[in-house]
């Protein structure tokens, strides 16, 4: 990661098309989350007269859930929770992690020592298990969920930002800026940040994917978003009895999550120049 950081993004034409498709799907989900009340055909709690766990029909294109609610509307509102909460958590994790990482790289000394050792210790905590402990202690409200997901991914974001900033910090133009008499805030904002923005954005995309997976995993266990609200993971859980009839209510929300996470990965690969497919 660190040695590719200083190179500008290369647009490899063969790899760009999947990237654009990924980006389109990501934008689609963002739009769904934003416009949920407008595009959902029914209110999230409305019960249709098609029966429970019904297969797809004209009235309910994705079937109905275990209470007979329209699955399409449930998924649209669920996307709101999944995208919204994960985005918030990923933004917090990336912002806090990057600020601390740049600080550690620029200040060095004991600031770096304390921050790096702490992140080393925290990074080895298994996330889902840590989340279980916190949910057991604090219950699962939306602020707790966002906080614990963000906290889980701060050490990772910190580590990336620190190594990127440390690389840039050793460059000649930083020496020149210092010799010119520029202060630390100027150096951070005008010299370091523009040079590490792209890889930090790439990392942010990955944090978002991790957040989606952790959050929906928790909800799937019944410990995330609580009823009557439901994110996509909770939708899979509450309709899990439909698994024996292969009802769309179980499969659709799970596939919705998969399209979102795969799309983010494709967009990062194709557009932000992370060379994963080719070396």
């Amino acid at each position, binding site marked *: 990661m660190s040695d590719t950081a200083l190179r500008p993004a290369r647009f490899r034409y063969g790899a760009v098309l999947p990237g654009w498709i990924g980006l389109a799907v990501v934008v689609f989900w963002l739009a769904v989350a934003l416009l949920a009340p407008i595009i959902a055909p029914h209110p999230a709690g409305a019960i249709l007269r098609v029966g429970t766990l019904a297969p797809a029909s004209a009235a309910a294109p994705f079937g109905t859930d275990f209470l007979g609610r329209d699955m399409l509307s449930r998924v649209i509102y669920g996307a709101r929770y999944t995208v919204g909460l994960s985005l918030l958590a990923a933004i917090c994790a990336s912002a806090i992690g990057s600020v601390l990482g740049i600080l550690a790289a620029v200040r060095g000394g004991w600031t770096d020592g304390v921050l790096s050792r702490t992140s080393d210790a925290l990074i080895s905590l*298994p996330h889902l298990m840590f989340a*279980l402990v916190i949910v057991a202690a604090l219950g699962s409200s939306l602020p707790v969920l966002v906080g614990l997901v963000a906290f889980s991914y701060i050490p990772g974001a910190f580590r990336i930002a620190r190594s990127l900033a440390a690389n840039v910090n050793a460059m000649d133009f930083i020496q020149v800026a210092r010799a010119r008499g520029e202060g630390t805030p100027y150096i951070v904002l005008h010299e370091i940040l523009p040079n590490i923005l792209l890889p930090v954005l790439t990392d942010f995309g990955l944090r978002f994917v991790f957040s989606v997976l952790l959050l929906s995993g928790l909800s799937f266990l019944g410990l995330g978003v609580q009823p009557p609200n439901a994110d996509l993971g909770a939708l899979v859980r509450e309709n899990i009895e439909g698994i*024996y009839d*292969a009802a769309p209510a179980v499969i659709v929300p799970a596939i919705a*999550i998969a399209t979102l996470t795969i799309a983010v990965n494709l967009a990062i690969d194709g557009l932000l120049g992370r060379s994963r497919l080719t070396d």
Partner: protein
Amino acid sequence: MLQLIARRLGHTALTLLAMSLAVFIGTNLLPGDVADALLGQAATPEATAALRTALHLNESAPLRYLHWLAGLMTGDFGQSLASHISVAQLIGSRLGNSLLLAGLTAALSIPVSLALGITAAVWRGTLFDRITAIGTIAAVSVPDFLVATVAVILFAVELQWFPALSTPRIASIPELFSSFTLPVLTLSLAVVAQMSRMTRAALVGILDSSYVEMARLKGLRPGRIVLRHALPNAAGPIANAAALSLSSLLGGVIIVEVVFNYPGLAKLMVDAVSTRDMPLIQACAMLFCLGYMVLVLLADICSIATNPRLRPA
């Protein structure tokens, strides 16, 4: 070399200590009273007071932490709040099941991912490499419970090849297959995806180095170059990759045990979280941390042992 390993052991012990502190603080964030919770309806003031003394609840938090830690060391994990059985007993009945599941998964996924990773690195840039790359990215970004539910719908409901629920029956080979195939395959998918990618990345760097090119120019057979010249140098990074991916198994195990209703440790912990059974949660969390640290330690020792520069002369 022994000195290095000893230092790693010390490091592991320190990290475990830090983790125990984190788990203790995490489970004591809310000032709930364990004595009240334990006694439930029978909580008279006298009984609560007596139990509080017996459980050291009147002591300060640091002292309670030390008591708890001392208990962990001696195998005394306290008593479950929900079932009033000792935590050690509850865990003892589940630990073997989880280890069996993890062991079977490791036995399947390590060889498969090594083979995939090595072949993808050797045939870099070919169609095979691209397909594995896309496949593994997809497998890594899909939630575990999607794989598990799709597997149940396909193989248990539609095709009816395997039961949808898994019980740890190992009396005969057919029984073993019928109860473990679905959970083990589900778990392996994520592990294989991650491990093969890391294996490939570790090996690609070495295949690019000049000494491998030298071996190629000398006219050695490709098989010999990979197995005798490149692989020994990649062993350390690959062991690390294996440990990291197996520890991601942890998240997967929690989901898979719940979906297949498998009586393992992770299911026990999830149930404990819904009943807020703190002593049980603490013990399970520490066991998971221990498992994780042991894996990382094994990988470290493996990379130290395979590094020729550290071998005694």
